[in-house]
């Protein structure tokens, strides 16, 4: 059976991991390559590296870092931030990323999704959506939640799927940083409308929140940052908890089992 995925997200600024609290204030949370390797050992199913300053300051993403991560990690990872055109996607995939996530650029130019799907396949194309609940509706935002876009969450997610997105990464700005659980109602509504996997983001504070977003939110994967970066929740402990709650979760084998084997080459 396909496992539900736990996805630590590393926000990157100037080559360091940071975590935004409601997208505005930042605290350091370590070296991105080392942190990623640690999460991988602890059982993370994949990682997301986001260049959070890219779309705001127009900075190109961190190809060197992507190469170092690819050399070190044996699990898949997604990169996002500052992807404006096909050339950016090509550069990041060539550096070793498995998937790219597009956000503002796709809102501004939805054809970008089709181009990525056509050239590299839908499986590499994650469409990230930042949306805020206001006036009884979920409104999409551009540039890391700074500029409102003329799109609604459900409408835009369906359009993204139609255009060839392989997955939707939905961050609730309403829940992000509050640590009171994911936007499960909206997530579940998304899961019912879409035919591609949905990654829940924004609101993780304790283990129960992950369980709830898998059961109530029907999410295929749950993304979190600060609870992992600051050791509030350990990935290994979280996965044991979720498995005990009856959720299908990948528990990696103990290292000694897979460190055996004979001489290579």
């Amino acid at each position, binding site marked *: 059976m396909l496992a539900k995925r736990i996805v630590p997200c590393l926000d990157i600024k100037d080559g360091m991991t940071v975590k935004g609290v409601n997208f505005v204030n930042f605290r350091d949370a370590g070296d991105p390559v080392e942190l990623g390797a640690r999460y991988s050992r602890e059982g993370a199913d994949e990682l997301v590296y986001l260049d959070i300053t890219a779309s705001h300051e127009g900075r190109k993403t961190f190809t060197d870092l992507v190469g170092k991560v690819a050399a070190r990690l044996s699990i898949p990872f997604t990169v996002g931030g500052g992807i404006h055109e096909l050339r950016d996607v090509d550069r990041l995939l060539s550096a070793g990323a498995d998937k790219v996530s597009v956000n503002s650029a796709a809102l501004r130019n939805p054809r970008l999704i089709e181009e990525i799907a056509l050239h590299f396949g839908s499986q590499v194309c994650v469409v990230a959506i930042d949306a805020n609940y206001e006036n009884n509706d979920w409104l999409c935002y551009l540039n890391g939640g700074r500029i409102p876009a003329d799109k609604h969450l459900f409408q835009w997610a369906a359009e993204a799927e139609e255009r060839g997105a392989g997955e939707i990464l939905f961050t609730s700005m309403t829940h992000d940083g509050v640590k009171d659980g994911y936007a499960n109602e909206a997530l579940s509504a998304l899961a019912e409308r879409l035919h591609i996997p949905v990654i829940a983001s924004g609101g993780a504070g304790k283990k129960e929140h992950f369980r709830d977003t898998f059961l109530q939110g029907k999410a295929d994967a749950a993304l979190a940052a600060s609870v992992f970066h600051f050791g509030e929740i350990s990935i290994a402990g979280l996965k044991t908890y979720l498995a005990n709650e009856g959720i299908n979760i990948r528990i990696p084998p103990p290292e000694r*089992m897979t460190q055996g084997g004979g001489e290579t080459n």
Partner: protein
Amino acid sequence: MKKNVAIVKYNAGNIGSVDYALKRLGVTPVVTADEEVLKQAGKVIFPGVGEAHTTMKHLKAQGLDRIICGLRQPVLGICLGMQLMCRFSEEGAVDCLNIFDSDVKRFCPQKHEDKVPHIGWNTLREVKGPLFAGELETQFVYFVHSYYVPVNHCTVATTDYILPFSAALQKDNFYATQFHPEKSGSVGEMVLRNFLTL
């Protein structure tokens, strides 16, 4: 002289990842489309991420279809590499290398929860043969694919998604995995190590 490992060079998306994975295991592969180098290699890895029809055209244009079929040493096809080693693929309705006499089919969702592509970690079942030495039954490996090879007489591991399908195939010196060992953490490393020690 140690026999080296060669990765078939063509327009596949995951050559870099396979190269990195082998280097983590202490092996530095050569990435090549040269017939002599491929023939002389101790092991050959045939990776693959992309679309079947376009990729087959590319392989034929480079003469790689003939070279791959004629290899005598252990060969490991990965993901699209495995599918291209089959007889025919529904993806672009294309004739493939016909090393394994099965056809590649597209997943047909049976209910709303059945999403295509099949993305993520799923379990290995009914594993057999040297590729899976070391208690790999029920371990999780990483998949990304929309097409699958039905269970057949060459199947050496199955995985269940919508229906049981071939997670791995073997026939003579040809091995193949639908999952990505290069992205499957320590379990994937063990599969790769098993292949390298054949």
